[in-house]
């Protein structure tokens, strides 16, 4: 019921108007006036009651219309010192509409408007009582005062009720505003935190890229240093020992054995040093991915077809990762797949480097913890790369790694 009333204001207020009409209809005095006057009385009453139907939509207009009718009634329907002459404008129960509208004004309009309405109503009440009292000699002064006080109290009560509703509305409104402000602030906080996190992620990404680049550059430098330093010195030393060995040939057996051992050790160390340096950074990588992959293919016991289609050269770190991954995959294929043919394709896809290694072996390659492919994934993930293994039982095996153009 309540929700229906709330959802249908026109109908609800229409019912209120009807109610006013019903209570006013009982007051229609019989036989005291002619038909035209009675019709005018009914018309005024209907208009007065009807004002409440518009109270929520046009509170001020409705109030003004009702008050105007009320004022006309006070002026012409209540006669000072005599019974009413103008029957059509006699006050009746439909004047309750004015109270309803004062209540509405207080509830829906700013307080200064409703206070003005209140003052008008109180003044109207006072004048009405002042004009009505003397016209009815039968009533004592106390009765007149009581009537005035009662009318004033009812009027004030209507205003107070309306105003308290407005107060509740305002409080609810302020509360909702405050809540919205708090929510907005929380949102701003969250956005700031997200922005800070994104900034930090970018920062970390840059730092990681620098770290990856630096580590590759450092490995390359170590290899260079070995090549230009230790390796060449050791080769020169081995050459000297070789010369001494030849010159000493007829000399002391003991010295010759020592020299021969030193010579052999130097040569062995050269071999080990070479393997070590090559594992740190294969020098062929300096000549680009195509040369490095071709060199890889040269040493593979399985025939390897290499095709490299890149326009811009990836960064050295990316080339190194691609090379070591291809080497690992190739070694796996040679060891486990039984393949008779492998192809390595490197191409640029939207600024990223995709290396695809396909073998026609028996398939079934998968990642196991600590295995070669798991190591591959770790290597690829250091630069946000991706590893994709497609190796159904029976083959063929296609392993794709995708790397950014730079770390």
């Amino acid at each position: 019921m309540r929700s229906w009333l709330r959802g249908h204001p026109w109908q609800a207020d229409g019912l209120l108007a009807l109610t006013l009409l019903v209570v006013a209809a009982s007051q229609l005095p019989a036989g005291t006036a002619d038909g035209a006057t009675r019709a005018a009385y009914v018309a005024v009453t209907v208009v007065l009651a009807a004002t409440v139907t518009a109270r929520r939509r046009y509170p001020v207009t409705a109030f003004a219309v009702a008050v105007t009718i009320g004022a006309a009634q006070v002026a012409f329907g209540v006669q000072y010192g005599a019974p009413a002459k103008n029957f059509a404008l006699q006050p009746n129960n439909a004047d309750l509409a004015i109270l309803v509208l004062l209540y509405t004004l207080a509830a829906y309009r700013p307080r200064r408007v409703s206070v003005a309405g209140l003052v008008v109503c109180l003044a109207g009440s006072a004048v009405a009582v002042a004009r009505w009292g003397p016209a009815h000699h039968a009533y004592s002064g106390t009765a007149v005062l009581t009537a005035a006080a009662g009318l004033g109290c009812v009027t004030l009560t209507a205003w107070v009720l309306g105003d308290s509703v407005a107060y509740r509305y305002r409080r609810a409104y302020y509360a909702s505003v405050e809540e919205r402000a708090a929510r907005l602030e929380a949102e701003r906080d969250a956005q700031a935190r997200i922005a800070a996190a994104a900034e930090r992620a970018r920062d970390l990404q840059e730092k990681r890229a620098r770290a990856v680049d630096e580590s590759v550059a450092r490995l390359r430098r170590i290899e260079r240093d070995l090549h230009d330093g230790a390796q060449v010195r050791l080769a020169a030393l081995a050459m000297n020992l070789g010369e001494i060995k030849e010159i000493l040939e007829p000399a002391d057996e003991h010295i010759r054995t020592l020299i021969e051992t030193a010579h052999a050790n130097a040569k062995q160390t050269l071999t080990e040093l070479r393997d070590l340096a090559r594992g740190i950074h294969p020098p062929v990588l300096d000549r680009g991915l195509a040369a490095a992959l071709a060199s890889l293919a040269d040493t593979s016991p399985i025939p390897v077809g290499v095709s490299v289609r890149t326009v811009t050269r990836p960064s050295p770190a990316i080339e190194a990762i691609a090379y070591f991954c291809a080497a690992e995959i190739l070694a796996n294929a040679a060891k486990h797949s039984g393949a008779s043919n492998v192809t390595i394709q490197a191409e640029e896809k939207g600024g990223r480097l995709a290396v695809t290694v396909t073998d026609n072996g028996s398939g079934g390659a998968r990642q196991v913890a600590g295995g070669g492919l798991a190591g591959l994934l770790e290597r690829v993930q250091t630069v946000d790369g991706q590893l994709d293994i497609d190796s159904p039982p029976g083959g063929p095996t296609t392993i794709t790694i995708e790397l950014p153009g730079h770390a």
Partner: protein
Amino acid sequence: MRIVIAEDAAIMRDGLTQTLSRRGHDVLAAVAGPDALLQAVGEHLPDVAIIDVRMPPTHTDEGLRAALAIRRDHPQVGVLVFSQYIETRSAADLIAASPQRVGYLLKDRVADVRDFVDALARVASGGTVLDPEVVRHLLSASRRADALAVLTPREREVLTLIAQGRSNTAIASAFAISPRVVEKHVASIFAKLGLPPSSDDNRRVLATIKYLES
């Protein structure tokens, strides 16, 4: 021999110069970069140039490219490329045009001075020298594993030395067998692999390398 050396490491450049001079060879120039090398070779036209693969400015394959340029512009000059690392691709590039007067050795080989000087002499006199490491790579990565499996162990050893550029005489002395036995082995190997027989050592190397590479 009249020799030009190109090697950017001073210790190795000086060591080689001393060693070769002590043996009575004539080191006409010892330089540190590819440009100076090409100039010295053009000027002296030596019997042989010893060239390090990694030289300035980029320290990648300057030496190899200089060696190829010398082989193109001065075919009468022998070229011995030596390197810390072996790339079979580089060896193939070097002997592709002609297997004459060319060598490719690991830098380590200078430790055995006599062998190194012998190799130098072979290059200078028109022969081919390929590092045993190159040949080992070629054999292990060869797609012809099935055909090679038909060879006897001794024939495989002989094939290895052929690929290194050794003559029948050298092979005979390496295994302490008579040259006639070596000839028999060589004929058998070439027949088994389906290669045309050749008495020319250089053509023999080329045919062998091409076979192993293909």
